[in-house]
């Protein structure tokens, strides 16, 4: 922790009378019924690195898009260096000295570095003089900030880390004083990330203000001077990094809410249903998303995977469910009921997984769990539409599917109980009930369930939890992935914590605390605790 304390000398040394680089007052923004930002206040001192942390969908990116002129806030005021300013478009933001490095780079892939740098910041109608000046300036910037890139290389030829440097150079070329980076390390290797942090420290020392958006606690602790936490569109805290801890930040991020009591008896675990051995997954951007994990799930138990989202849980669920991201390389072994699963070959598809007794309630129900424009009764059959009870091999038995759908709708209390209604027209909770009904009533040996209650109202949460426990009591195995710590703690029989593609440790929900899990979720190395199963 000494390093962080030393670093905070930076902003403290700034003259007291200098207005903050950025001041947001009461910023609100709604997209339809979704309140993405609610009355946000934020102050960032000049010459500091400020972290904004929060889960996916907490409203971080929306806030930064407002600052960069992508969205107009519904209300609120923005001050840059003490002056109120209306940021109506990106040009205004650039003129105000704001530069943004987006998560998905905004580069023209078949242009050279130099062309990308000058695009939109040309000196005149002719290209040659602009290119010449940019070349000189680029050399200066490269020396000043360790930002070496070959100016004549096309973007396609560059590594992701170098592409990011081009984005930073673009902002600096436009004389940005305030640099916003949205999840900058998501696509970087650890070495590239370290290099990036050196660059950012160098920029800070030159008096630039940097905003770092991330959901990785380690990065916040490592590099920021101050940090703000967002949750569900609200700014819940702004603190000095030196005066906080990963546990506190994790707690602020995930949020405490009413602990839902789940009525369940102790688990009666049987034989292993799923055995995962040394599983690795490298995605097509060459980032290792799963780094050699091993675990078992036995019949009659719920294993919960806790973790801040983006630490490999999604990839694990998709891989088990039979639809890993395109281009992903998988190694290791998975046994299902003692027999190995095909991980990358012809029989690694979702249909085969279902046939092997793996049911899946995907994390993203709107994209992966349902077809939003299709009726509820059709959605009830998806994935199982070739099974004998729904189909004779050529024709769907519409009558059988409908009858079955009506039964599921009744048993799962889907409202309104109308099988002809398109999935889109149900509320989030009722959409989720349709998916859960489809998967649970198949009675799978293993149920994969991701974020079962995201965006689901309290009543439906309780109902869905009950069904999961019932499935367990029927002797089935359940793998639960959730970013809701309360849900993990109340529902699981065992808890595994994932961080950065690894399992940091296993805990017994009866004896562990949210604080302890929070530490593991933040990547603080596991020390064997009493009571671990």
């Amino acid at each position, binding site marked *: 922790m000494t390093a962080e304390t030393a670093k905070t000398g930076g902003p403290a040394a700034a003259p007291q009378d200098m207005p903050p680089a950025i001041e947001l007052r009461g910023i609100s923004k709604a997209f339809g019924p979704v309140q993405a930002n609610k009355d946000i206040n934020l102050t960032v001192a000049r010459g500091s690195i400020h972290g904004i942390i929060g889960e996916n969908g907490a409203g971080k*990116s*929306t806030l930064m*898009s407002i600052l*960069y002129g*992508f969205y107009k806030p519904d209300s609120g005021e923005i001050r840059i260096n003490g002056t109120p300013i209306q940021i109506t*478009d*990106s*040009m*205004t*933001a*650039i003129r105000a000295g704001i530069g*943004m490095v*987006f998560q998905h780079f*905004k*580069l*023209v*892939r*078949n*242009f050279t570095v130099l*062309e*990308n740098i*000058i*695009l*939109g*910041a*040309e000196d*005149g*109608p*002719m*290209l*040659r003089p*602009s290119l010449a000046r940019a070349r000189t300036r680029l050399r200066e910037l490269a020396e000043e900030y360790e930002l070496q890139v070959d100016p004549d290389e096309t973007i396609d030829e560059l590594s992701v880390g170098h592409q990011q440097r081009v984005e930073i150079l*673009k902002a600096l070329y436009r004389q940005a004083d305030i640099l916003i980076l949205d999840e900058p390390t998501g696509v970087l290797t650890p070495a590239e990330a370290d290099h990036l942090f050196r660059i950012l420290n160098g920029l800070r020392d030159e008096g630039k203000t940097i905003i770092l958006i991330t959901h990785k606690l380690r990065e916040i602790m490592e590099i920021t001077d101050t940090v703000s936490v967002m949750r569900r569109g609200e700014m819940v805290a702004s603190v000095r990094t030196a005066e906080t801890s990963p546990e506190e930040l994790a707690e602020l991020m995930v949020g405490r809410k009413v602990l839902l009591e789940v009525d369940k008896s102790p688990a009666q675990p049987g034989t292993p249903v799923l055995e995962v051995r040394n599983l690795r997954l490298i995605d097509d951007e060459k980032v290792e998303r799963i780094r050699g994990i091993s675990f078992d799930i036995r019949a009659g138990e719920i294993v919960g995977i806790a973790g801040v989202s983006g630490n490999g849980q999604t990839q694990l669920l998709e891989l088990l469910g039979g639809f890993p991201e395109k281009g992903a390389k998988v190694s290791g072994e998975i046994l299902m009921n003692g027999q190995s699963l095909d991980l990358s070959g012809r029989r690694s598809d979702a249909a085969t997984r279902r046939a092997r007794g793996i049911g899946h309630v995907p994390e993203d129900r709107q994209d992966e769990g349902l077809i939003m424009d299709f009726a509820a009764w059709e959605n009830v059959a998806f994935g199982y539409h070739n099974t004998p009870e729904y189909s004779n091999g050529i024709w769907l038995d519409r009558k059988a599917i409908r009858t079955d759908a009506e039964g599921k709708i009744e048993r799962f209390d889907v409202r309104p109980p109308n099988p002809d209604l398109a999935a889109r027209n149900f509320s989030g909770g009722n959409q989720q009930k349709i998916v859960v009904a489809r998967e649970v009533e198949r009675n799978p040996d293993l149920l994969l369930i991701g974020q079962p209650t995201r965006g689901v109202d309290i009543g439906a949460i309780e109902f869905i939890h009950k069904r999961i426990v019932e499935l367990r009591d029927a002797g089935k195995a359940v793998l639960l992935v959730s970013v809701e710590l309360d849900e993990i703690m109340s529902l699981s029989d065992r808890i595994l914590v994932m961080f950065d593609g690894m399992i940091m440790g296993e805990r017994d929900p009866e004896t562990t605390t949210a604080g302890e899990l929070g530490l593991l979720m933040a990547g603080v190395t596991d020390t064997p605790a009493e009571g671990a199963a």
Partner: protein
Amino acid sequence: MDFNTIIQILDSSVRLMTPLLLACLAGLYSERAGVFDIGLEGKMLMAAFSAATVAALTGNVWLGLAAGIAGSLALSLVHGVASITFRGNQLISGVAINFLASGLTVLLGQKIFGLGGRTPNLSGGARFSEIRLPFADQLRDVPVIGPIYADLISGHTILVYVAFLCVPATWWLLYRTRFGLRLRAVGENPASVDTAGVSVTRLRYAAVAICGVLCGLAGAYLATGLSAGFVKEMTAGRGFIALAALIFAKWTPWGALFATFLFGLLEAIANRYPNLEIGPVTIPSMFMNALPYILTVIILAGFVGRAIPPRAGGEPYVKER
């Protein structure tokens, strides 16, 4: 085949390729900016009709040319509003423009002239006349260079020279100017242009407008340069051939010149030798006339190597969160 025949065929190729070249460059501007345009055909047809009509009514070919450009621009604007402002499907908008032009030209033509959709034959000041370049006659007798200069290079209408000048001009504009850089960027990754603070909408409208002007020139040339008046469906698929040439050209101006020359040459050969005899086999004229279209199919089927279209082509730009 003697030298003179070759010169004549090439001369004919130049005339025939001109509308293709103009339309191909028109498509190049539009598609390089990310707006697919299968309405080239319709715009040319509309331009041919308005140019011939105004030229016939006023007897002034320059007014005809202006009207041709205006007619084509009007349809470009429709395409722009549909596909840029309202983010509609660019293919559907293009198809609609083709149908619109096809019906409207015949309808209006019949209403104005009562000749079954044709315009009266144009003559004199209502047509573009051939330009004799200086010293054409004096140089005619110099071997080789003489006929090339006097017959091949000299003696075309002004629009032919304009079309050929458009090639280096387009190259220069695309690769040497700020506008060109932005235009190419907006067709590859509009978000990069948008985040740089430049209006995607304005750039795309500019490209679509240039496309309209060039189609206007192409159509006007068809009706007042190549032929002497408007005939129903006189574009005869040239807009689509231009699109195929654009793919063949891999969206580059010099490539467009080469590709359209190839099509022009085929058409010229077909015109010259309706029943080509190769040894004992006589190739029927129908086949010869179909050659440009057959080549189009071959090109579109991808037999000419990998052509990478502008990455953002065909997709309306929506700001993402």
